[in-house]
């Protein structure tokens, strides 16, 4: 079992109503599967399933098909970036 910190940003953080949570995972799990799990467990978690939602693992952008490794420390979900 792997315990991972999950963080949310911007509009997604406001919809879900929290900026982070700790989740226990039984590997192997993909980013897409984690998204589905969080969508079922969190209040307003369905917002995570919007196709625009992006993700990162330990500060690197990821895709739904990417697998979560044992060494992962932090996973983030967020809407498309709008800097500059």
């Amino acid at each position, binding site marked *: 079992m792997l315990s991972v910190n999950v*963080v949310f*940003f*911007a*509009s997604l953080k*406001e919809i879900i109503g929290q900026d982070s949570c700790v989740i226990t995972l039984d590997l192997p799990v993909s980013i897409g599967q984690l998204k589905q799990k969080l969508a079922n467990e969190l209040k307003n978690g369905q917002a995570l399933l919007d196709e*625009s939602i992006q993700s*990162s693992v330990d*500060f*690197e*952008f990821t895709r739904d098909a990417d697998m979560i490794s044992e060494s992962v420390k932090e996973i*983030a979900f*967020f*809407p*498309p*970036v*709008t*800097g*500059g």
Partner: protein
Amino acid sequence: MIQVQQENFQVDDLYNNLLKANQTGAVVMFVGLVRQFSDLSKQACSFELEHYPGMTERNLQAIVDEANSRWSLLDVSVVHRVGRLSIDDQIVFVGVSAAHRAEAFEACDFIMDYLKSRAAFWKKETQGLESRWVAANTNDEKSLERWVK
């Protein structure tokens, strides 16, 4: 230099830091500002920039590294503000120095394009009592296509 900060920045200081004695033939700089986004008074509007500490800096470094690998550059500075800003405030500075103008222009353009779509920042606009997160512009994503090798 890559800097994510709340404080304002001085363009002349950043410009001077880009100059390399006897080598610099061109400096290209871009400054992005908060423009009026509402019919309400300037005082009734505010603007907030959220970022992901750690990831944002890494994203910017990766963009600058890619620019350095594509063009022969002398120096690059990227400064991006976060937190609460007002109309007319400076948001972002990208400066590039090189021996010749072509690479300085292209690298500056490239860095801004990627910063818009590949760096972890999110903008929120407030007009009076209403706030909204700014939606990503599909043209920004399209703009990246011209850099595909």
